[in-house]
């Protein structure tokens, strides 16, 4: 089978039962996307397929030979982080890091959904969702984080989307934290 992942062509000889997630993790050495449940319940495996976020554990690799797939490896690397990746580091929007690639891919897809004006369950005005904590929390609730970096995930996303809440940019938060504990 042939795949286009992160703009690169891959060829793999895999079982038709292989999920897109297992294709990447077990056959292509792309272990950035994580497996937390294998049942579409946690979001750790989130990838972007043709720009939309998808739980890659819930879809078979064989179905995606024509698609443009982006995994976290295609978003950015330590030498050149994507603004969202950088914001996650600055805001400590993770702890163990296991849900993180999924959170970041999900956030990229989510920002695009808001930009397109797609409403969510909490949108007061269905025709133009606003960019606030509630809206982001709702839309990011498919990505579980047991370390519970949720508030920092929201802050990181808002900072990148230029809608940081009052006093909640990484620099502002750092200053408050430093003042509190440093001599």
């Amino acid at each position, binding site marked *: 089978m042939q795949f286009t992942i992160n703009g690169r062509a891959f060829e793999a000889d895999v079982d038709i039962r292989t999920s897109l997630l297992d294709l990447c993790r*077990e056959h292509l050495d792309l272990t950035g996307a994580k497996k937390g449940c294998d049942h579409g*319940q946690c979001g750790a495996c989130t990838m972007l397929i043709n720009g939309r976020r998808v739980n890659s554990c819930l879809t078979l690799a064989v179905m995606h030979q024509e698609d443009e797939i982006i995994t976290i490896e295609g978003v950015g690397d330590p030498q050149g982080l994507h603004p969202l990746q950088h914001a996650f580091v600055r805001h400590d929007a993770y702890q163990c890091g296991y849900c993180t690639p999924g959170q970041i891919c999900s956030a990229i897809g989510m920002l695009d959904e808001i930009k397109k004006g797609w409403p969510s369950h909490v949108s007061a005005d269905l025709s133009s969702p606003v960019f606030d904590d509630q809206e982001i929390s*709702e839309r990011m609730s498919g990505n579980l984080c047991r370390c519970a970096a949720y508030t920092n995930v929201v802050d990181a996303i808002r900072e990148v989307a230029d809608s940081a809440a009052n006093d909640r940019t990484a620099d502002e938060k750092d200053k408050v934290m430093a003042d509190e504990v440093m001599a």
Partner: protein
Amino acid sequence: MDPFTNSLTMDKPCPQSLLDTGVQGSISRPFDRVDGPKKVSGKATYAAEYDVPDLAYGFLVGSRIGAGRVVSIDADAVRSLPGVIDVVTDFDRFIRVAGQGGETEAPTQGVKTITSRGEIIAIVVAETYEAARDAALQLPVNYEREGGAFDFAAHRNEANAPPDGVTPAHASQGDIEKAMAEADVSIDVTYVTPSQNSAAMEPHASIAVWEQDGSLTLYGAYQMPTSDASQLADALGLPSEKVRIISRYIGGGFGSKLGIAPESVAAAIAAKQIGRPVKAVMARQQVFEATVRRSNTEQRLRLAATADGTLTAIGHESLVSNQPGEDFFEPVGIGTHMIYAAENRLITHEQVPLNFVLSGSMRAPGEAVGMVGLECAMDELAEQLGMDPIELRRINDTSIDPEKGVPFSSRCLTGALDEGARRFGWDRRQAPASRRDGEWWIGMGMASSVRGNMLMESSAKVEIHPDGSATVSSAMTDIGTGSYTILAQIASEILGIPVWQISLSLGDTNDPPAAGSGGSWGAGSSGSAVYLACETLREKLATAMGVETSALTLKDGQAIAANRSQPIGELVGEGIAAVGKIKPGKQEEETTQASFGAHFAEVAVNSVTGEVRVRRMLGVFAAGRVLNAKTARSQCLGGMTFGIGTALTEELVHDRRDGKLVNRDLAEYHIPVNADVPQLDVHFLRERDIHANPIHAKGIGELGISGAAPAIANAIYNACGIRVRDFPITLDKLLAKLPDPN
């Protein structure tokens, strides 16, 4: 060159700390995690992600009965399926249950006997994951059902006192019956909490590789590699030094990865048998069924007080559960021993034998659920007394351990209560069921927080290289706690080397042994080991400069003394190394050590549906020196969020017929999601603990959960006037009693 060694047993306080005299400015600073760029780009390597050649895939097979024995496994029925290599079992050596934290011997072995549904009895190995899974699900197994206790209520009368654990099973002082009878005001209530699962996002996973010399390398997801290597070696009948565990990145643990889990032994035995490396990753359902749960609890709380609010008695009697023959018990009353003064005390634990998943450690074993009972009962008592709940706690604060009679090493409970009340706006709290916002009842609640502080024997090596950089290595782990970063900060502060020039090797048992991550001891223990190594290196640098150690300043890679400044790298020849070793000592007996804090919560309870939303929460904590303000805050956010789950959603449900976990996945076991968690506030009080360790820090990872759930429960009561004593507080428990909205 052999490294120098610097050992310290904490027999005496350490009033001076090099972290206070260092001038690098690294310590406590909210540095971004040093491993952050790797984590956000998918480059951090977790257990299941090592690229090992010739790898075979294993899929575990769990028992489909709850108690009895395996009669036969029909391996031939699946051996010929495409891709299947073998079906492997070892009825003697496979482990029946997961290991407990810190044990050095194998957990209970032998899987002919089934003691809980889901017990791992075999592993199917195949060329691909898909083939292994398919064959594992088809594998015919014959069982004989026998006995089994699957219903807590039905078996509660069989409860027995377990052997003492981290807290005594039974402890009493004075005469609680008399105190209750003579009290001006008293409370006698029972609180119930359900079984819970740590649900770390990374499932337990092992890749087992046998080396040429007969030793085993296991890439695993472990919190405590040093003792886990001993457990694994014992299970396999190998000397400990023949097992190497590598756990560089761990996708969360929360206690569930303290000991070895069944996939490790299964992978190792299978790899030996087929002569190839084997990867075994637990399916999420298997994590629920075959690792550990936090025990359910039934807690009788008795509080007696004089009219002015002085406690005269505290009773905390708990029923918990575990498999028959297993010693670990949920130490429910561990915080109750030390949080409030009262002359008459009774704190007991009785174990109900049940054929459920093994009960073991989950974040703050004891306090996480024990504080639910105690702090809700305190709220009930305050109401009966007509007293502010903060005032009640303030009155009963104590600087002396109420049972041992020794002083606390440091204790800032009242400070946390007062600071929290001020920041949270506690003075705006109203009487129960009196504040509304549209269709929502609004209320505020609070609770105290305590978590015992522990020091565990640990070591670490620090090397300074000729280029002026340094390396820290230890079998310590970073399970998301920030170990990589704080250990770099400690070394940086003492050696005057910028954090970015310090590299780390953690999670490998080839490095100096350490206690790992658990019980909130990780930072204090391994941080002290790094401190001691650096202390020696600092002395060596002074000698090389020809000055007294006290005259030496180390900053930005320069050694400065006697009007000279020299690059540190030039003073170390080919490089110098030192090993630091810390051990607990008499300070543990001479002082009682714990971190303290206070939680505040504001909730909204829907007047029509009974739905509860947490609107805001504040935690104020005093845990000695904060080593990194950012990672420390994140630890507290995590703990507080566990508290939200405990209060509102988390509950393992066992089928009463065979103990099967009904909700064994992340869709049915409800951990808090982003939308359940509002912006949480965390505030640290300034504190140093000179009795704890030379870095003056106490544990923080479990402090945030202690007291978080009762603060929410008390806020629910304040919002709508309904006292729910059966956790979690789901809307069905509120619905029938909701006050008339008009």
